[in-house]
């Protein structure tokens, strides 16, 4: 009851904040797994402008279609927090099944496909109705989530089962399982939808899977002088829009590998912060942001020049990163 009466007042505050804020620039959001917070970075100044408290153990993070809402997996609270990106306040919390870790949104913005790490399932969540549409059983410790560009095929990787599960987004049935190397962490479709890139953290490789035949067509390996093979642990993978390059975060190797996405040759290793996991491009793909868990910072990569230009201190144990669409 009282909540309804509050509404006009809150709207006024939001309006005031809007008027006061400068023209909205591109914003980077970083989930801090041990900080239980989200660090907000302004892309123009490359400075942290705010730190927002969220639920416990925030990991997966994504921005809604129009940039007004931010979704954060609060793994230890078994929910997804939805934040208003203007105020940084949690506006609702979604029931996401137990231990949500990573998720991906349908191209239309709804539903959200959530990997429930502790419960060996993928939850399909209607975010408008806050309703679970389906629960798809997958392998042990589901983590990576990829969606084909047309939204028809969802891929989940399970870290202990070591498979990429192909899920039909209409029937919610697992249609195929592709075995990859140990501890697959991340799945990324090429823009044309023909290939799927899957990183294997313990295996130390990235498998490129032909989506049509569901066969591994290439296994990319990494070698860095002075770094042991054990330290090379691929996690986040991002492909450029033109299909030319892939960036692979190599965990405790403290490097991001630049791979020619057509020949699969590794071109360069960019030194970043410690234990680099997740990656996100700015919408124009001029910059790439990395989360460095152990050094508690974010590295900024100049995509054109293939150089690391800055490191920005954030909260405790940065895990995921998302960028606003503007």
């Amino acid at each position, binding site marked *: 009851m009282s909540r309804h009466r509050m509404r006009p007042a809150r709207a006024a505050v939001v309006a005031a904040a809007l008027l006061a804020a400068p023209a909205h620039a591109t914003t980077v959001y970083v989930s801090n797994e041990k900080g239980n917070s989200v660090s907000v970075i302004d892309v123009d100044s490359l400075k942290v402008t705010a730190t927002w408290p969220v639920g416990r153990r925030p990991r997966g993070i994504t921005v809604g279609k129009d940039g007004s809402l931010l979704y954060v997996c609060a793994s230890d609270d078994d929910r997804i927090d939805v934040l208003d990106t203007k105020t940084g306040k949690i506006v609702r919390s979604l029931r996401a099944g137990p*231990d949500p870790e990573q998720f991906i949104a349908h191209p239309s913005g709804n539903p959200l496909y959530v990997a429930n*790490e*502790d419960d*060996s399932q993928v939850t399909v969540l209607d975010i408008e109705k806050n309703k679970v549409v389906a629960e798809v059983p997958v*392998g*042990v*410790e589901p983590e990576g989530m990829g969606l084909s560009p047309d939204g028809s095929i969802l891929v989940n990787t*399970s*870290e*202990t*089962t*070591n*498979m990429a*599960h192909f899920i039909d987004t209409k029937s919610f049935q*697992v249609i195929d*399982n592709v*075995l990859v190397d*140990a*501890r697959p962490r991340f799945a990324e479709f090429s823009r044309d939808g023909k290939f799927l890139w899957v990183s294997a953290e*313990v*295996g*130390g490789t990235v498998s490129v899977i032909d989506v049509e035949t569901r066969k591994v067509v290439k296994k990319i390996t990494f070698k860095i002088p002075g770094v*042991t*093979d*054990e330290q090379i*642990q691929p996690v986040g993978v991002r492909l450029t829009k033109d299909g030319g390059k892939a960036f692979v975060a190599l965990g*405790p190797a403290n490097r991001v590998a630049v791979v020619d996405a057509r020949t699969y040759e590794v071109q360069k290793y960019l030194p970043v912060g410690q234990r680099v996991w997740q990656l996100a491009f700015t919408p124009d793909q001029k910059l790439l942001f990395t989360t460095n868990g152990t050094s508690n910072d974010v590295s900024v990569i100049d995509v054109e020049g293939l150089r690391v230009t800055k490191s920005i201190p954030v909260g405790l144990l940065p895990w995921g990163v998302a960028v606003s669409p503007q």
Partner: protein
Amino acid sequence: MVALRTAALAPALLALLAGAPGALAQTPAPPAAAQASEIRIGLIYRPAPAPSSYDAQAAPEDEGLAGAKLAIQDNTATGRFVGQRYALDAVALATAAPGEPAPQSPVEAARELAAKGLRFLVLALPADEVLAVADALKGSGIVLFNAAAPDDRLRGADCRANIFHVAPSRAMQTDALAQFLAFMRWRKLFLITGPQDGDKLWAEAMKRSAKKFGLQIAAERPWTFGPLARARGDTPTRAEALVFTRGLDYDVAVVADEAGDFGDYVPFHTVDPRPVVGTQGLVPTTWHPTLEVWGAAQAQNRFRRLAGRLMRPLDYQVWAALRTVGEAAFQTKTTDPAALMAAIADPAFTLPGYKGVALSYRPWDHQLRQPLLLVQPQALVAVAPEQGYLHQRTPLDTLGIDLPETQCRLTKS
């Protein structure tokens, strides 16, 4: 599904018609033979004896067994995507009681499981019993996993081709500790050795590790005061120092007490303020409740839901043995025992085990390569191999007996 089951039942029916007496006695057909897609794995273990009326740290009765159950659950979760099923046959050996007939021996238990068609047996038993089972099953094609015995001789002069060792050897444990001490520059060791055989072997391993990593045994004493750590509840103790620790020049006390009889009594009872490491104090181990990185938190949670308690090192070691079989079956997409054995022995085989790196078996002695945790009761202190300890193959081979020094000569079993 139905067609498969009928086909699989046929040999059993034929055996019945032929009037084979063995087949009549066994009501259900041997499961492993009946289901081509099923892998049954055996576990032979000795449950911890019932604790006294009050024991704050009694070993749970299902130690090891609960790890096997978790592995079956994990293997099954993956197996259903590739048409494989997993099942466990666990045999809890009774301890001999006076006046009663001798209970089943490990060899008898192993033979029984072998007769049921099982091809993979996990043993949580002492070294002599592991060897007895290995020799009894020699040539049968059955693969054994040693999940508990740390004895270096099982990986050395007494090694057997049909055993894979999941438990870390004493040499691996003491190397892990020695690396940590060398890293901290705590070089002068005071070694306190217990009266039991295992204690002496542990102390020998520690001396070898000290030499390997440039540490010095500055002083050495046998422990002759009985199980003082176990008496903690009987007599309220007061502040007092152990006289035999007086007048020594050392950085750190190292206790060799595998049974846990006195090691926990030594900290804070030395004359000089010195940390205690070894089998108590700071200890090298495979698993600890404080491990949560590398996905371990998920394994800890799954285990706790299943067993209603925290996962212990033996649970982890048994889990790793059963997961080895599952992992080989997934990677080779077969349940054929011979193919799985070849896959496990292949140097390219790897097992993920929540340690941040892939685990694998050393070809020269079948020992599982693995990082070891250095823990104190409530905290993870370090993980060995320490950074900077390099090796031409993998830093993991800085722990334990390396190829050039091994006494193991594996011959076909």
